[in-house]
């Protein structure tokens, strides 16, 4: 009787060993979310963590926020083999990431943006061609 009980127990353990590791691996899947470093890392973390936590609650999935100190670091990462599972990036970066890794845009804010070239109201320049050889201010080197 005891021997039969042991056999049943062994069978049960063997059966569980088939299924438990898979179930556990599935539950442990954590998806990385890389965010373009528009702000310093601490500011990015502060802005994004409440959203990430809410996204986890809503989906039942685990996410790990990945922040970057430098734009170069982010741009390397999103075209590398260990690229994040999800990225939040500007339109041009997404285009490059799509070509390199086949990232697919899923969702975005409704608003669209336009680039603006402007001058002082009293400037003699009437078109961008008048800016040849002139000095032009961009926010950063990544603004095309």
């Amino acid at each position, binding site marked *: 009787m005891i021997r039969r009980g042991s056999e049943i127990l062994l069978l049960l353990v063997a059966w569980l060993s088939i299924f438990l590791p898979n179930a556990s691996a599935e539950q442990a899947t954590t998806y990385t979310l890389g965010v373009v470093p528009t702000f310093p890392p601490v500011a990015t973390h502060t802005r994004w963590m409440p959203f990430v936590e809410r996204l986890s609650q809503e989906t039942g999935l685990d996410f790990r926020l990945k922040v970057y100190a430098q734009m170069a670091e982010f741009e390397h990462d999103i075209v590398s083999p260990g690229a994040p599972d999800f990225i939040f990036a500007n339109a041009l970066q997404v285009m490059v990431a799509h070509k390199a890794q*086949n990232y697919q845009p899923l969702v975005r*804010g409704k608003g669209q943006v336009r680039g603006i070239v402007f001058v*002082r109201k009293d400037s003699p320049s009437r078109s961008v061609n008048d800016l040849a050889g002139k000095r032009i201010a961009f926010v950063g080197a990544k603004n095309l």
Partner: protein
Amino acid sequence: MLSGQKPALTFEKEYPGSTQNVIKSVLLNKADAGVTLNTELNKEAPDVLSQIRTLLQTQEIPSHPLAAHPRVPQPVQKAVTKAVLSLDKMPADAKLLREVWLAYPVTTGYDDYCKLEVIDVKKNSNWGN
């Protein structure tokens, strides 16, 4: 936008680091022109905007998307999309979306972004440096 001008436009560049500094550079005559996004410019006070004139604006570019790597299973991608869209329905959650530039979320796809392929981003933006 200026890098795509034909014939190529040659000009000197400066990078003051923020839209407000770009505007200051132009208003103080440190720069002959400034470049930024309409969404940033529109945050400025009317008296500041009254001192500048637009020379050129580009066509509309879709805002930053949340994008998924193809290794992410389709059901997970769909769950994330659905969750972001549903967060917009609650005021407190909608505020979270505004914080991360996903206000009034809509579904998107690469079709919205492929028109940008005409730009040689890696060359013109000093990609990865």
